């Protein structure tokens, strides 16, 4: 299967890495590809350099549309504009407002972060200490989510530009954010960081995992430390481990995006554009696929729906 030689549009969906999050999105992409009878390819770059290289390759190959999750929006403008000049470019999951991209499909990581903060408040109404875990803090989505959590817990105003560098604790009158730990996507490290936090802070109140794989690792650590009843866990994204934890009542709740719909909507819009139909564009170029809070009430239904979406077996 190759080439934009036929009249069938060929569309590319470029991720910002190879996290499992994107596997769900891929399902959406493929589904939409079948539905709209377009040819789709999901590209998973290793890092910024690789993303640029691969986008250039796509442009060279002459695709009819690209939906990209920008690794570093502030500095990728020129690349994005170059792409926008030669094909239909939309952003998904991570936006680059100041570029020439046509529209953005996704949610607001900062608001999602604040939702996460609200979950922490629910879990720990009388306040306490909080430790945040994330893969890499320099990624925009990570930055915004974390800031959202912090601002919510410190009852600050909405301000996407604010940034508290990690290192020293942030004290509010009820909640104290002790620190933020990064694991560079090393799952083993993610778990041992959780363990170390547990042994370092015997009175740790709540642990927040901001990347999909963090919460399950945290849960593991807390289980093994036998502190399930003492330490609250708040999650992000929809790893099975996380949802299981919610069902079992070990994890208070999680904030989920909807990667599947990122895939579907991106392809739908790109197909329209490729076929010259601009009616598919959302108003003010932002198709908001809002994040949702998942707690014990709605976890069953959500998980069912998720399983339906991603039922087919791994792409071997």
């Amino acid at each position, binding site marked *: 299967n190759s080439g934009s030689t036929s009249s069938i549009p060929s569309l590319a969906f470029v991720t910002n890495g190879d996290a499992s999050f994107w*596997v769900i999105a891929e399902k959406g992409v493929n589904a939409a590809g079948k539905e709209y009878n377009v040819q789709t390819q999901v590209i998973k770059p290793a890092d910024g350099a690789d993303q640029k290289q691969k986008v250039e390759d796509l442009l060279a190959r002459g695709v009819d549309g690209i939906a990209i999750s920008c690794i570093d929006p502030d500095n990728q403008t020129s690349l994005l504009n170059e792409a926008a000049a030669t094909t239909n470019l939309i952003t998904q999951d991570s936006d680059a407002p100041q570029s020439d991209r046509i529209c953005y499909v996704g949610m607001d990581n900062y608001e999602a972060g604040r939702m996460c903060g609200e979950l922490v408040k629910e879990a720990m109404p009388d306040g306490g200490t909080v430790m945040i875990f994330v893969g890499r803090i320099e990624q925009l989505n990570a930055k915004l989510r974390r800031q959202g959590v912090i601002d919510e817990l410190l009852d600050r105003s909405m301000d996407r530009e604010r940034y508290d560098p*990690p290192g020293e604790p942030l004290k509010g009158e009820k909640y104290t954010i002790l620190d933020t730990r990064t694991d560079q*996507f090393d*799952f083993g*490290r993610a*778990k041992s960081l959780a363990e170390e936090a547990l042994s*370092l802070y015997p009175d740790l109140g709540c642990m927040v995992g901001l990347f999909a794989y963090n919460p399950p690792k945290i849960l593991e650590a807390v289980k*093994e*430390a036998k502190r399930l009843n003492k330490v609250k866990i708040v999650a992000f994204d929809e790893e099975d481990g996380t949802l299981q934890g919610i069902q079992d009542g070990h994890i208070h709740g999680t904030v989920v995006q909807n990667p599947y719909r990122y895939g579907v909507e991106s392809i739908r819009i790109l197909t329209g554009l490729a076929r010259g139909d601009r009616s598919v564009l959302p108003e003010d170029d932002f198709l908001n696929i809002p994040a949702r809070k998942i707690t014990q009430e709605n976890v069953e239904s959500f998980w069912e729906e998720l399983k339906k979406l991603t039922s087919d077996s*791994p792409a071997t």
Partner: protein
Amino acid sequence: MKKVLGIFILLVVVMAFTASMQPQFMSAYNLQNVLKWTSLYGILGIGVAFVIITGGIDLSIGSVVGLSGAILPLMLTSYGWSIPAAIGLSLVISLAIGLLHGVLVTQLGLQSFVVTLCGLLVYRGVARWITGDATQGFGSEYDDLRWLATGKVALPGIEGFQFPVPFFILLAIALLAAFFLNLTIYGRYLLALGRNEQAARYSGIPTHWMILLAYVISALTAGLGGILFALEINSVQPSSQGNFYELYAIAAAVLGGCSLRGGEGSILGVILGTAILIVLKNAIIFLSIPSSLEFAIIGLVIILGVITDEIVKRWATYRRTVKQAKLLKS
């Protein structure tokens, strides 16, 4: 032995210092974790030590960890294999990988660096491909299996401290390896050919088989390690699981007194070397040093360790000559 002593002292110093700054460091819970991670990484280190002793190198360990760690849950959950079958498959594949490396190195005379570098790329790719990049995990089942990695055992007579199961696995492997290396003819063969392969061959030693064996051991321990890591972490991201672990394993072996020129190595040293790396990571958190400095500190400690070792060695030789001089003069 001297070298091992040196690194042991280093280990004690680091631990004492951290403990003095942060009593929590000495909590049973933390020590148990340190022991657990040391055991998991230590298994990899012991394996690669054998290849290093032959004068080779194995860069594929991390990818093998990723591959075998991905295969196990994949087979169990997606293909519904039985536990023995799935574990068997992981180990058989690791074995095959080791054989492949060994054959390419001994029969075609390729350089281990090149062979295993390609291995690093290929096995990672395979792992990502067969899993479709999807994170693999055991969910909440298989807890009895996961006990192998996460379980803890209280030994009679020792209060308040439980030994993680991986520690016993490491212990078994380490004892086996130490026996093999120091008391059997095969260990001696490895040491001999690591220093002077021709001499070994001329002495009638089946050098090719011994080298092959070393690569098999390395790959097998990596495969086993991969399984344990997967069980411990309970979710495996095929694209990143085990990245750079080969470097940790090699670094531990070097810290522990293996010479990359071949012919030298101590199992105890490797374990202590691993322990240092783990304790350092742990200490960095406990002394709330910015985690961005983690790599830098580990790197610094390794290089300083190696440098000190070298300087001490030289100084000793110098002293000896001078003493000898004085002695005979008088």
